[in-house]
């Protein structure tokens, strides 16, 4: 896989994850610190289906989509919703998602031990790269991850701008109180956003092992890139998150690659410093990220 191809694939995945984080942030008002672990849940779903039923990770996408969505919804219903009902503060909600991340880490560890016992193959460290193939000289991971994100964008656009539910959804994203007054059920939009967030992360998780090695802790490592992408995108706009995903994904892959030509390959492991630097630069220069910049530009012209 060439560097550019790798960068596109990685950006696709980061974009999927940061879109998920942004949607739940918009509807629920809490940045989900467990978003990285949502992805690893998808990776383990794909691994299980592959080891036990010999289902290729690409064929397990629909199953991962549904299971990941159910994970997202159940997390919202069983932990965040009761806390919101008790009028917990934003920080409390963030700590709750941190706790969820921790529980998920424990579950992945326990489950990988269990899976190892069942299959006799290691499940605490795995990679799918050897199972990838080529379609007309393009690696399948590049093709499929790009197709999925394209398809998703079309569906999301149709849903948001062509259906009544989409109007309600956009309304409750812009101004929840007003939407509620107009008879929109906020609860439904929240449920929908957590389903979507979980399922997108799970799909990204199916693709992720083609790009990097997965261990139970991977979720807490990639969260830096996801946060960076969402913050660059401005945290309040789905399109911002998409753009942020590509900015972060490309700079992480390409900038470190360029640096490695100058400073040697040792620099490659520090790729997340680039994300962190971009994230901090965004926060210092433009509080509201790319979405804020675009908005300002629109209103001034």
């Amino acid at each position, binding site marked *: 896989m060439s560097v550019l191809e790798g960068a596109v694939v990685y950006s696709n995945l980061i974009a999927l994850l940061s879109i998920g984080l942004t949607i739940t942030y918009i509807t629920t008002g*809490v*940045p989900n*610190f467990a978003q990285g672990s949502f992805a690893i849940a998808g990776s383990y779903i794909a691994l299980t289906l592959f080891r036990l039923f010999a289902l290729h990770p690409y064929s397990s996408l629909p199953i991962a989509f549904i299971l990941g969505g159910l994970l997202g919804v159940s997390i919202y219903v069983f*932990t965040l919703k*009761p*806390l919101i009902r*008790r009028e*917990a503060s*934003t*920080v*409390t909600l*963030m*700590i*709750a998602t*941190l*706790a*969820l991340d*921790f*529980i998920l*880490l*424990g*579950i992945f*560890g*326990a*489950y*990988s*031990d*269990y899976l190892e*016992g069942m299959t006799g193959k290691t499940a605490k460290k795995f990679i799918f790269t050897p199972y990838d193939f080529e379609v007309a000289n393009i690696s399948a991971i590049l093709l499929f991850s790009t197709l999925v994100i394209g398809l998703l964008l079309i569906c999301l656009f149709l849903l948001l701008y062509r259906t009544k539910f989409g109007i309600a959804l956009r309304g409750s994203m812009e101004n929840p109180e007003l939407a509620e007054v107009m008879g929109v059920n906020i609860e439904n939009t929240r449920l929908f956003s957590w389903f979507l967030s979980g399922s997108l992360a799970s799909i990204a998780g199916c693709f992720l092992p083609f790009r990097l090695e997965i261990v139970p802790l991977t979720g*807490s*490592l990639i*969260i*830096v890139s996801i*946060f*960076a992408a969402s*913050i660059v995108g401005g945290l309040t706009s789905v399109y911002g998150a998409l753009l942020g995903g590509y900015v972060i994904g490309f700079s992480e892959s390409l900038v470190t690659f360029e640096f490695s030509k100058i400073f040697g390959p040792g620099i490659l*492991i*520090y790729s*997340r*410093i680039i*994300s*962190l630097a971009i*994230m*901090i630069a965004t*926060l*210092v220069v433009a*509080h509201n990220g790319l979405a804020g910049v675009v908005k300002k530009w629109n209103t001034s012209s």
Partner: protein
Amino acid sequence: MEHILLNILIWFGLYLIVCVSLNIEYGFAGIPNFGRAFAVLVGAFAVGGIVNRILMLILGVSGELVEGSSAVKGATNEIISQHPAVGILVLILCLIIAAALGAFSGALFILPSAKLSEYYLAMTLLAISEVMFMVGYYNPDIIGGYYGVSTPDVIAFIPGEHRLEAFSLMTLAIAFFIYFLVCRMLNTPYGRLLRAMREDDAVVEAYGKNVMMLRIKTCAVGSAIASLSGALYSLYATNVIASSFNRAEWAFYPFLMIILGGLGNNRGVVAGVLSFVLVKVLLSVYKWELTEVLHLPFEAVWLEYIIFGILMLLVLMYKPEGLIKEKPIMTEPIKSKVR
């Protein structure tokens, strides 16, 4: 049995220091520092990276840090076993450098996010901490990367069989000293100002206080204290590796302890740390029995994560005020009004 008790005492001391520091920042000042682990790691940097290099210079050991540190450890332990005063001196040197480096890094670490609202703050702090953790683990020049480095045994003058006892007593003494100082510090106008900032920083700003400066100060103090814990842990373990300073043990657990004990209230922190450490040490002591009895098809450490994660959610839902509730501040004017 004695060993278990000493283990509980040491961890109680180490975690009390970290939790007191987090309580200043989150409990009192309302800064959600999800990157607490970074300050603790800085303490390990101070001992493993700086004090080791100073000792290498003094003892004339040349070469790389990883090999040099074990040579230093041997030579220093030899000297300390003859002259106890040297050991105390090294300990004090470690603590001072750790506190200074902690204060500096804490002040620096909050800068990019000093003006931001809660969620940006929390996300940035966590991201910085996570990246620094990775750098510490991958870069062999800081504290030996994935090889780790050795640290001198500052109480080598005490015979080996009594080392654990001496170390736990020392840690406890330092922890209670810090606890006492922090209690005094928070019972001043500064402490009340922090609580005011937590409730509403706009009001504090309106009264002419610089909120950003206040946040920087608080983070410097908090990080300096947390670094002491990292330094003590490195000296206790007599070797340090960055991977021991992960987010779970040094950021998530401290949050669990202070929320369990009761935010913004130092006695609550003691209660939270004590009950948490009891459960944690007992879990780790009986992990084999636990796996055996429950027929777990996995290692007990994962169960620990799940249990503590669920405990956190339960506390947040059913007892958000913690074991001991924060009391209103009884200053002299308020006392006379209440009466």
